[in-house]
């Protein structure tokens, strides 16, 4: 946990437009957000509200059309630092995106070897530790095709953690899972939050948000409508739009 009082992520007035055949979609409209080190932020909002886009902008899988993002003191303007930033920012996807031609161990080891240039033995030891941490040490040699969705997502979390990131981004990590597998993934995320990892989680898991999050953010139409402590936001939202949305999902 960092003792730094500066925000580790500074998002200032960012804009993002997608140009499609039907016209321009303003996916992010003047979004500003600060995340302090060790903070867990849950982002909720209806489909198409720009939650995922914001997340993807933070590690530059999407470029921004205006504003600025500073991650751990590094501005994401030029492409020069981008791989350095990405290595510090772990990302977990809705569709897992494990490498299907590598075993669980291989998935976790690859970036350690290629990006962090760790030795094989070192990377393998780290991968084993992480598999223990996410609770599936016995699946080290299994291929993604042989794992359940929950197990795959846990391997994906372990893969991101292997890079020793300062920040973890979760893009709807449980949306593609069966209800009974959601818990095993949330448990891992909960443990991570308790360790003091800075996390931004796009999720509609209210239970997780209430238990682990320091702050909840509601987004709609590419804007941040309201942000507050999860308990307050979920039980007593101030905006009509938030109330309407919450009434639908609760």
């Amino acid at each position, binding site marked *: 946990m960092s003792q730094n009082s500066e925000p580790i992520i500074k998002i200032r007035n960012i804009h993002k437009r997608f140009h499609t055949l039907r016209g321009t979609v303003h996916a992010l409209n003047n979004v500003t957000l600060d995340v302090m080190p060790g903070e867990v932020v849950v982002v909720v909002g209806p489909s198409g509200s720009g939650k995922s886009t914001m997340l993807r902008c933070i590690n530059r899988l999407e470029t921004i059309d205006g504003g600025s993002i500073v991650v751990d003191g590094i501005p994401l303007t030029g492409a020069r630092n981008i*791989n350095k930033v*990405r290595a510090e920012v772990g*990302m977990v996807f809705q*569709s897992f995106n494990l490498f299907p031609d590598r075993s669980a161990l291989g998935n976790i080891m690859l*970036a350690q070897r290629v*990006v962090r240039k760790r030795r094989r033995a070192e990377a393998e030891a780290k991968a084993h530790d992480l598999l223990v941490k996410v609770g599936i040490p016995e699946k080290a040699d299994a*291929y993604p095709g042989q794992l359940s969705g929950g197990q795959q997502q846990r391997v*994906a979390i372990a893969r991101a953690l292997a890079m020793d990131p300062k920040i973890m981004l979760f893009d709807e990590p449980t949306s593609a899972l069966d209800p009974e597998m959601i818990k095993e993934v949330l448990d891992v995320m909960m443990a991570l939050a308790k360790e003091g990892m800075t996390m931004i989680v796009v999720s509609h898991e209210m239970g997780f948000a209430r238990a682990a999050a320091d702050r909840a953010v509601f987004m709609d139409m590419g804007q941040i409508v309201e942000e507050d402590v999860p308990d307050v936001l979920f039980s007593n939202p101030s905006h009509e739009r938030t109330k309407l949305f919450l009434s639908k999902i609760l």
Partner: protein
Amino acid sequence: MPDESSRTDPVQPASVLPPEHSGEGIPEPSAYERTIGWLASLPWWAIILGVVAVAVLYSMLTSVAYQRVIRFLTDDPQSSTTDLFSVVQIVGEPQSIIGRYVGETEDSVQTVIYNLLDDVIDHHLVTQTGFIESESPAAITVRTLDNQLITIPKDRIETEERTEDRDGVRITLTYIDRVTVTGIMTDRDDDTMTIRTVNEETTTFSTDRILSRESTVIPCDRDANPGCEDREVVTIERQGEIITGTLNTLSQTNMSLALPGGDTREIRQSDVDYFHVPTLTIAINQDRADRSVAPGDEVRIAFVEGTDITAALEELNSLEDIPVPLQYADGEARAALVSYPDIDAALEATGTGEVSGLVYLASDEDRLAVAGWMDENPDSGVILPTPPRECQRGCEVTVKLVDETISGAVLEETDDEITVQTVAPEFVVLDRDSILENRRMEPGVCALNNLRGCNAGIFLTLRVTFIAYALALLIGLIIGLMRVQHNPFLYAFSTLYVEVIRGIPLLVILLYAGFVVSPWLRDNTPISLSDEWEAIIGLAFGYGAFIAEIFRAGIQSISRGQMEAARSLGMSYPQAMRYVILPQAVRVVLPPLGNDFIAMLKDSALISVLALPDLLQLGRLYVSRTFRAFEGYNTVAILYLLMTLFLSMLVRIIERRSRLPG
């Protein structure tokens, strides 16, 4: 269905069956059904392979023609050879040549070298003029007119001319500067190279043909080599060979015989001592000379016992004007052959009208006998209507070649046969350090221990295909990667390449490579492409476009999430391509790549337009030489089929190995 009633339904309930069948369950399948069932359980390639194997075996067992075609199409590899390379080496120091002479003489090494320099090896003479600087018994050092010091060993000096001058002794020298060794390299190690400059020639023949024989025995030096045997050197006057066969062609200079075994032999007239070609002699009855043959008549033709009447009648029917009474073939008349014990009897019978005529493929003596009989019996009533005609084709002839004298060492001799080495092989052993220039080094005889010498047929097809495919993979990978870039120049260039090449027939691309690109390169750059490389480059660029599209599709088939996951872990674009996308894409594209490899193997048949002796070209050559189109093209097809079947099995195995678990 109309015929359903006639079938026995095996699953009919027992109650409706007649009593005698009531105990029967499902009947045993017939042998036919069992066979079909077994065949259906086999993999597809086993069935094709089985059919091909049966066909090939049947053909091979029934005909030697196939063995000949296969030997021809595979460049006839020997099991082993000593003719590794055909070489031309330039050597600076004649002293470094270590001669070895395998012959009947026992010359010293020095003499041998001298002989080699004089006869076998070209040498390059240089003339220099200068002043003698110093002189020793072994060498002479000369200061040339342009003030350079050269030292020349005395045994290399051919001519010298000295004049006294006021500056010193002026000398003009002609000496051997460098020598060229041409021959077959038979062996080499780190230090030396053995070159056979003269090939051995031997002849084996029957001892019956020896007319006279002189021999000298060269005792071997038992002190130096205890196990050796004395050598016998002979001079033999040998009777010319006697060849019997069927005449194919006969010209002023050459004749061609079909031998009983099915081979043909060309003989130069100058080698022929004498030969006998039978002449067709016809005699007919005078009275019948004008009487034509009516349909239904019996034409009686006399022949002499023991003569070849079939060949004679063939010759008769090939005549332009057949004597009237013998025109049995046109008039639907029957020919009756009457045999007589000798020629006189046959002629008498012709005279009496017992037979219409006499046909006879006669030797020269026999023709004289006919003429003599005619002289003796002027009123016999027999006339000889056409002048005798020599057989031009199809007759059995006997040729005797001229006698000759041969000499050499006896290699082997039995009661029946003798083998004489008429030319002894000569070898030069070179010190490899002394070689100034490797002027030429070409692969020697095709053999299993010298595969680089196999440059035709199936070897060429396979080699061209493998090299061209490896190149095409490289081109395809690079162009395929360019096709998925956002950089407009890379994308435009790669798209242009793919669209242009894909739209041109491979044959045209090959012709471009061979007759446009290669000559241009030869004229404008130092690059000179061999025919084989022209073909390889043509095939590689032609297939590169297709393989590029395969790679592009393979890369694009990997979900965007994979790239995002890799990038989010901090990998650069090339790293993500190399470690994440390409390994997955390669698995996807393996089957189409395998297909393209097989297609390229087949399309390599097109390279014969560049005059390369590939499998198809050799097949065509064989067919045009022997007119055996069926065997020739069958073998070509079977060899291609066997190669592609083997490759598709290999592709399947690789595919199965690369399948992911789960």
